[in-house]
């Protein structure tokens, strides 16, 4: 039972770390689909 609860908690921790980590690394969908060149200044 303890192993199961620890595993479920680990699952949540990994998910949160993955979300924060991927966003920090610039892998968010919005960042992947855009670039500074997108905005036309002239």
């Amino acid at each position: 039972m303890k192993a199961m609860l620890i595993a479920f908690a680990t699952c949540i921790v990994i998910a949160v770390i993955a979300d924060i980590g991927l966003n920090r690394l610039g892998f968010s969908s919005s960042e992947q689909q855009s670039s500074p060149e997108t905005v036309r200044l002239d």
Partner: protein
Amino acid sequence: MLRALLLMLALAVPAVAQEAAAPSTAPDAPTGGLTDPLVIDRSATGGAPTLEDILARQEALRIDDSARRADVTGGPAPEVGGELGARGGASDPHLWRGIRFDDTDATSANRGPAATTLIQDGGMVWLQFRNGPLKLWSAWFLGGTILALALFYLVRGRIRLHGAPTGRTVTRFKAVERFGHWLLAGSFLALAVTGLLVLFGRIAIIPLLGHEAFAPIAVASKWIHNNVSWAFMLALVLIFVMWVVHNIPRLEDLRWLLRGGGLFGGGHVPARKFNAGQKLIFWSVILGGVILSVTGVSLLFPFQLPMYAGLFDIVNATGLPQATGYGPLPVTLSPQEDMQLAQIIHAVVAIGLIAVALAHMYIGSVGMEGAYAAMGDGEVEERWAMEHHSIWAEEAIADRDRRRGAPDGTPAE
């Protein structure tokens, strides 16, 4: 009466004749199926779509469009000049044909790899398959699995211990094994539920709870599915490393399978730590899990990991698709097609694995007395171990007794 019969006969003759005169379709004529597009003669219209084209499209038949893709006036379609503005949008058949068949060097302010594919044919095939057969077959398959398990329970009942419990236990799974198992099980359940919500939400949740309720459910499902996937992949590696040695197929597995694991005969078939049924589940999970992970990662990073064009090239080289009559698989795929293939493969394998997991959960809980303890606290009743995994049990009991001293109290030598 006789007059009526004669009248009927007179009316029936032309009908029969008309039926007999109906043109018979040659056995090898194109049918307009997915792999067998209709070839339409457009010589009368100079290559432009004909009435036959329009009628076939209304029937949702697939048409061989190779002639339309080709430049009917000769030469390739010119590049789209600059951005699609007032000039670029001029009525130019080359330009529009290029856009229609994704055969032009369009530029776009959006920097996504797939942003310049303005019309994508394969998208409709994917959408129709996802919203049609995929949902229908998945629902039937999963519903059928649940029904089969319920029927099995009604017919066979709970598999109980045959002998009296000994009161002694033996360690079946260590804490780290149970942790790995529950990490895999927990993440898989979260992924399965959220995946099913994404697939069936529109037809199952929206009519039930409404759009407003489904919107946050869909957003949460996406977040969970995207991020819990890493826990699943980690657990898959853990499980593989810990249990692969115990899951190598052996000759005795054949005997176990031939006797159906003793499910109906009543007798027990000798088995090691994992019996043949569990080995089948293990390899299904590993193989299915790897496919889910690969397709899932390619979906997590859209358009970054195209793989099917290369894979199809290798498969075509084996001659297998050609031998089955489907012809070579396409080796030029738009970025979206690659993602759509990943999604279909991901969903089909996931549905199969959910069915396997349902059967596994059944036998590990209500289906068999004493089975849950193996993953609960890791200790199983000695009688249970002897009845279901006799070869492993003898070794495990001997090992336990060696560690603790003999059960009758005499110290181990």
